[in-house]
């Protein structure tokens, strides 16, 4: 079966407010950065797929305008998921596995600044019974954090250490938005303090995938996708144990992440307490480097943050900093849906 690798990754600087640029203006330089790394053009890409959400932009069909940034002329083979770009990458991976494409461009963007993100995300919830109560994303994450503390899995001090570690790591990441490692901040929603929560970000990312020998030709050290899988859990919070993530565990098993140790993991954990849940589900030991980029606590462009985790893990394989890495993306409240990819540098195609 066709082996597929990440051969290029690019991202924007992530900022609190990008009012001065449109989505096309935000996405276009990132696309050209990724394509430029492998010397490709839009016309030579076999398949293109993007991830985004209309609700962030506040208008229907917002992705049609972003497509203009690709320069889809002559017409291209293209698709879009109304999800994080990590799932757009999954769709592209499937396409390459069919053998009907050799290369794929995957991109994602999120502009949170036009609206109030905490309000906007309530619209993800059960529209009849839950959304009318407007429980916001930070409050739901606080429920999860409190459940973990009650279960003895963590405490506020250890959560603060997670925040400090991620944001200190982000100082080496020129794209990061937050590098302030202060942990004496005020409560937002108990038990979560400001430092336990992600920044609100505008940003974009792009990845180029390639199959087999094409990947070897385009990249000195491709990041081979050894396995990738995603799983969803029940939406109703009352049906879930928020202290565990069975969907992450199952996705990791299916992606083959437990067959050999990984050296680093990029986890899409916007809230500190979610890193605790994910480390347990993924059986990450203390010798695994977690979020060398700073993770979603340093920059959280919604709909791109998951794709960035795959890109950051791949970039470390490209440079030789790691041979085997894990990347994780999440969607929905309290880690409802999770994707795990295992990337390797050793050529096994």
């Amino acid at each position, binding site marked *: 079966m066709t082996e597929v690798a990440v051969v290029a990754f690019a991202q924007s600087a992530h900022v609190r407010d990008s009012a001065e640029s449109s989505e096309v203006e935000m996405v276009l330089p990132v696309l050209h950065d990724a394509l430029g790394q492998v010397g490709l053009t839009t016309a030579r890409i076999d398949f293109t797929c993007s991830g985004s*959400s209309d609700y962030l932009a506040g208008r229907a069909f917002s992705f049609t305008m972003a497509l203009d940034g690709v320069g889809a002329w002559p017409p291209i083979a293209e698709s879009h998921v109304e999800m994080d770009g990590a799932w757009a990458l999954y769709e592209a991976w499937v396409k390459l596995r*069919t053998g009907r494409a050799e290369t794929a461009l995957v991109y994602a963007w999120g502009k949170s600044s036009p609206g109030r993100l905490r309000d906007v995300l309530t619209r993800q919830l059960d529209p009849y019974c839950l959304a009318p109560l407007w429980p916001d994303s930070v409050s739901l994450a606080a429920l999860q954090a409190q459940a973990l503390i009650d279960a003895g899995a963590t405490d506020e001090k250890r959560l603060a250490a997670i925040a400090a570690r991620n944001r200190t790591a982000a100082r080496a990441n020129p794209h990061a938005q937050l590098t302030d490692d202060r942990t004496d901040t005020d409560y937002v929603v108990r038990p979560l303090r400001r430092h336990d929560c992600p920044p609100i970000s505008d940003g974009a990312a792009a990845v180029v995938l390639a199959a087999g020998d094409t990947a070897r030709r385009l990249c000195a050290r491709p990041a081979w996708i050894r396995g990738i*899988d995603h799983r969803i859990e029940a939406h109703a919070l009352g049906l879930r144990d928020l202290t565990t993530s069975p969907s992450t565990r199952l996705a990791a098993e299916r992606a083959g992440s437990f067959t050999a140790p990984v050296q680093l993991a990029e986890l899409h954990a916007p809230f500190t307490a979610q890193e605790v849940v994910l480390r347990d589900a993924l059986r990450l030991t203390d010798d695994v480097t977690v979020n060398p980029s700073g993770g979603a606590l340093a920059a959280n462009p919604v709909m791109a943050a998951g794709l960035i985790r795959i890109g950051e893990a791949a970039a470390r394989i490209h440079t030789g900093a790691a041979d085997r890495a894990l990347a994780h993306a999440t969607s929905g409240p309290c880690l409802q849906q999770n994707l795990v990819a295992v990337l390797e540098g050793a050529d096994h195609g």
Partner: protein
Amino acid sequence: MADEPVAVIGIGQTKHAAARRDVSLAGLVREAAGRALADARLDWPDVDAVVIGKAPDFFEGVMMPELYLAEALGAVGKPMMRVHTAGSVGGSTALVAADLVAARVHRTVLTVAFEKQSESNAMWGLSLPIPFQQPLLAGAGGFFAPHVRAYLRRSGAPEDVGALVAYKDRRNALKNPYAHLHEDDLTLERVLASPMLWDPIRYSETCPSSDGACAMVLTDAVGARRAPHPPAWVHGRAMRSEPTMFAGKDYVSPRAGRDCAAEVYRQAGITDPRREIDVAELYVPFSWYEPMWLENLGFAAEGEGWRLTESRATALDGDLPVNPSGGVLSTNPIGASGMLRFAEAALQVRGLAGEHQVDGARRALGHAYGGGSQFFAMWLVGSERPDS
């Protein structure tokens, strides 16, 4: 190793209506999915993954509704993906599901598309103010009418061809128990007498706004052997996109549509679509798009599509029946409309289309488009396994 052959072994749809107040969003998708599983004689645990599609989230006011619908579609513990490619989404969603089977990532995939337009107002959903861009021109009709006018001028078509299409499709819908509009007393004269909305498009030449869902079960060669009813086999499938607007765009016959059809025909070994395809389900939300797409898809030469329609070749008993289901003109839950076209094509080659069955249909085209005529998704299905 070649692609795994992909078979459609289950098809389900809801009864479509202006407002399905008897069901929630979850109830609506489950109605279609349950019927598709029953057709395939499978149960929820037999499904390996779910691929769901719909048009803008603003139509129901739920952001990323796949999250809320996970339980209703039996997806808990499974992979679930959400596709969104504007009006073509129902087709694109089916194609993503087909790729999962073709790539041997999953054996049996449930794909669902829906829209519950009564939960919101489609005109409002499409008309949110956008800074620094032109406002949408009074809904989709306002956008498409000038392109229809351009087609009329270019082709010299008589002005009543659109009415012929509307009358034909609405008559076909009377044979489809799931169709939204059942206008028993409609006559050609009434279509022509209906109010002019966006010249040259009259009220009876426009699609309704519907609640509804469509679902299909796709599987591999082994799964097809176990299916209780004849499968439809996927012989060709493709998506193509081009930019929304630029100086070189041909809105009457977009190149992305022509390229997409050419790729599907290449895969299916079709060299003369007019002779080799037995039935076509085309995405025709405004009547004039039937002759326009007949040209774009290679069934007629440029400027000649209206002659096919006028000669009644596209009638249910013509030699190239188009939209035997009644089409988008009779049923339009936007997110599901593309999948309904794909599903009708599959029903036809399975011989299971009931009263609107085209005799001896062996190869059928399912077609969807979206955005400003910029996104295209198509498949060609057949009664025979493609490699046999």
